[in-house]
């Protein structure tokens, strides 16, 4: 008895801990009730009651959608009660969950077997009913289960943030939705190519030999010719690099705006934005949009929507074109000047600077520093299959900077002589992580191990609201055939697809945690990695 009492107490403390974590007054009342009612209720019972009450509360606010999900979730929650609390709210329930299984195992012995079996039977019956109704609703409600399965923790958050489709390729419902959307916009769907490594099977993988232009008519009528050209240049890698892609995108948009004429009975503000939507889908199909491109598109759409309706077409077009020009000027050209001014302060004479790949901004900084008579030398680190470092090497050597060239496998050998590491970024995420070319996090890691300062140079227009802590969730898979190399006339991997146990993976991006980055140099100044959300907030307030 003492044992059971002790268990009861621990159980109740567990409940209280749980309630304290939840901070829900309702549950406290429930706990009181439980305490009063005593030992009849099992732990599972209490959990269930609590959840039901919460759901009822939510159900009055939301539509029947979430409540549909909730009881189902609740059903699935209850039977593996010991495991479910752990999975559902891992952070919060972890301390209580540990105590729960312990108390649970001993609790049933106190309860009458009859009530337990009865309740179990009831639960099972309810589950079956829910399952049957779910099956019946499977066709139209295909969105609900998929989002439900993807975000069980979101039960607590009323607004479920929808995942972008380009990281849900293995979900046929999402793929079907995308196909329907593209069909509506008359954009062809690009099909995936080759075997995808299972960890990345949720991402698209395209082949360069099957361009999207195969499926559109030759004198492109649905899509503006400059957009077709741009998409082709993206997919073939002729325009590569975050800044270059954004600038080329804005150039193409300028052409589109110049050639645009408002159809009768339409407003320029609304119609032009609608015209741009299929173009953006097309570009997305050619190559997934970068964060900088996304921000540029947002800006353009905002500018277009802000055109007053009484504005004449010529004026509106001129205004838009000047907006685009000023955006490029401010966010890219002048930002680069500002960043190099700050960065040059950090470069002292006698420095050995390590750069990775070909970042247009870092190259710009180094060239400016060299012109300002700083004495330094550069080590360019390169990696396959893109071998972009060669391009960076060419540009720096053309200016007269002394360079060394190594592959990334040699980075730990050269780091002892390096004084600083300058890295470029594709995007800076809201939690301070840096998304950049694959291999950057490796360099940052090794540099940290050698206590070499790592400075990331990034314009503010590349800051994005996304949050990511690993490189798996959202990435880009490039053409796997790029990894195949022909040496002395022999191509060993020529028919890699016939090998069932072989998969080629060509990742493009990776994320570097903020612990490895010492400083981020932006045109607003030199900020630590963790200040990125502040900048984003300030930007949003400005706009």
């Amino acid at each position, binding site marked *: 008895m003492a044992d059971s009492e002790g268990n009861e107490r621990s159980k109740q403390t567990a409940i209280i801990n749980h309630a304290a974590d939840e901070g829900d007054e309702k549950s406290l009342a429930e706990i009181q009730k439980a305490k009063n009612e005593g030992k009849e209720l099992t732990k599972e019972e209490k959990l269930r009651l609590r959840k039901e009450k919460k759901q009822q509360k939510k159900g009055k606010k939301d539509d029947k959608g979430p409540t549909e999900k909730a009881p189902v979730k609740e059903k699935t929650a209850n039977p593996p009660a010991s495991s479910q609390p752990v999975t559902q709210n891992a952070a919060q329930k972890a301390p209580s969950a540990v105590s729960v299984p312990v108390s649970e195992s001993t609790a049933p012995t106190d309860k009458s077997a009859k009530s337990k079996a009865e309740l179990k039977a009831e639960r099972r019956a309810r589950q079956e009913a829910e399952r049957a109704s779910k099956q019946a609703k499977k066709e139209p409600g295909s969105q609900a289960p998929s989002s439900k399965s993807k975000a069980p923790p979101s039960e607590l958050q009323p607004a479920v943030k929808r995942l972008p489709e380009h990281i849900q390729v293995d979900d046929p419902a999402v793929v079907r939705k995308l196909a329907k959307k593209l069909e509506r916009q008359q954009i062809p769907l690009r099909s995936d190519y080759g075997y995808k490594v299972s960890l990345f099977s949720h991402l698209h993988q395209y082949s360069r030999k099957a361009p999207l232009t195969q499926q559109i008519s030759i004198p492109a*009528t649905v899509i503006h010719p400059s957009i077709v050209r741009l998409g082709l240049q993206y997919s073939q890698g002729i*325009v590569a690099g975050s800044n270059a892609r954004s600038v080329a995108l804005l150039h193409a948009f300028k052409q589109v705006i110049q050639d645009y004429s408002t159809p009768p009975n339409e407003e320029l503000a609304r119609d032009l934005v609608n015209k741009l939507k299929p173009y953006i889908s097309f570009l997305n199909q050619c190559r997934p949009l970068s964060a900088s491109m996304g921000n540029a598109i947002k800006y353009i759409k905002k500018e277009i929507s802000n055109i007053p309706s009484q504005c004449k077409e010529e004026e509106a077009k001129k205004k838009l074109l000047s907006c685009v020009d000023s955006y*490029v000027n401010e966010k890219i050209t002048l930002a680069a000047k500002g960043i190099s001014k700050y960065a040059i302060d950090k470069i002292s004479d006698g420095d050995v600077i390590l750069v990775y790949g*070909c970042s247009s901004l870092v190259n710009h900084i180094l060239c400016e520093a060299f012109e300002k008579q700083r004495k330094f030398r550069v080590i360019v680190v390169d990696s396959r299959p893109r071998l972009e470092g060669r391009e960076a090497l060419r540009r720096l050597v053309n200016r007269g900077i002394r360079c060394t060239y190594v592959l990334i496998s040699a980075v730990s050998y050269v780091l002892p002589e390096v004084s600083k590491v300058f890295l470029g970024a594709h995007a800076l995420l809201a939690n301070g992580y840096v998304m950049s070319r694959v291999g950057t996090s490796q360099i940052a890691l090794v540099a940290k191990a050698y206590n070499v300062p790592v400075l990331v140079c990034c314009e503010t227009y590349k800051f994005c609201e996304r949050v990511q802590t690993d490189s798996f969730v959202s990435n880009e898979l490039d053409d796997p055939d790029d990894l195949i190399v022909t040496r002395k006339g022999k191509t060993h991997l020529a028919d890699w697809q016939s090998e069932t146990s072989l998969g080629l993976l060509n990742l493009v991006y990776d994320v570097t945690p903020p612990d490895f980055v010492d400083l981020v140099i932006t045109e607003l100044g030199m900020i630590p990695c963790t200040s990125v959300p502040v900048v984003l907030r300030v930007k949003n307030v400005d706009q």
Partner: protein
Amino acid sequence: MELQAVLMAAGGGSRMMDLTYNTPKPLLPVGNRPLIWYPLNLLERAGFEEVIVITTKEVQKALSTDQRLKLDVKMKLNVECIQEDADMGTADALRHIQQKLKTDILVVSCDLITDVALHEVVDLFRAHNATLSMLMSKCTSSRRRVPVKKAEREQRDFVGVDSAGKRLLFMANEADLDEGLIIKKSVMRKHPRMHIRTGLLDAHLYCLKRSVVDFLVENKSISSLRGELVPFLVRKQFSKTSISRREEDHSDQSQKRKDATAALDEALLQLASERSCWNDHSGDMSEAYHGGRLRCYAHIMQEGTCYRVNTLTSYVEANRVAPKLFEEAAVHPSAVISERSQVGGDSIIGASCHIADKTSIKRSTIGASTIVKEKVKITNSIIMNSVTIEEGCNIQGSVICNNAVIGRGADIKYCLVGSGQRIEAEAERTNDVIVGSDQLMEI
């Protein structure tokens, strides 16, 4: 509008006069369709909605009355006529219609039969912002015996491409070279690895920038696209004062207003290419494309069909292959074929034909309204429209043109019977060309 298609159908077919002295080349039947149908079909399949056809008055009349063409081709044909005796080259023809050309153009020759994926050629044009993009094919040599008038020695074309096989570095015809191949040092410095090929067939399909048409208007001395303009452009890629400079002069004069915006756009494009970490070559210190503004590309077809019907040999070859390109009933529904005749699976029978008993037709093409009487054996031959073949004939490997009459019991082997000719009964001809006397003076 991205591209305008221009179909050159004014050529005379100078290398197969026996066939073309009565029928203009664009109307020659290949697989029972007029030759001009094939490039039109290619353009239609690619997605073009409008084509500018440059042709003679005769062909224009025939095109407007040809029911078949009207049914099969849904595109809008803007026919431009030129005088037949004006002896206009292809470049002259472009100059003639330059008012109609508003965007970049795709020039196709009427004698091209191919199933190439057009996007391959056009993608090179778009992606690299090229001035010229053309189609070439690895030649397939024909090994069958065909009626030839005289030995036709083809002049070889030397085509130099870079190591990736896309960029055109060198183009010359054997006739233009005196002793040997001369390759400029400036080319070698920029592209140290060049593949020079001689066995390529030029399909005469070109994508040209609008500025090239302006250039042609300026330089009236260039009269042929393939013979003069293309080698000129390929050479100019590597010269210091490139054509683009001259193009800029043009645009300055004609479009002063658009200068500012165009300059800004150019600056943006320049910025994008500067910031891009891409280079088309590696190993030397120059930027992408070596900073050259003028670029010529070629797409070389490795597989698939590509024929240019400009000689008798290729005409026969095309007749054999063309029907396989398109799925169509080999036997036209309106043809009357007797049950006791044997028509091979790879033969094509045209509309309103009459095939009598005990005939055997193998691997041949029979044109429309042809009458074939009993006990006739036709193998590997091309019989055009409205031909009458009397009983007991044996025709092998021959080409019989329109309205000919073959008398009974004739034995024709590897011959070319001209239009409207009559072969007397019991004649035996081998390796002969039977044409009208008025054609004998043609050289």
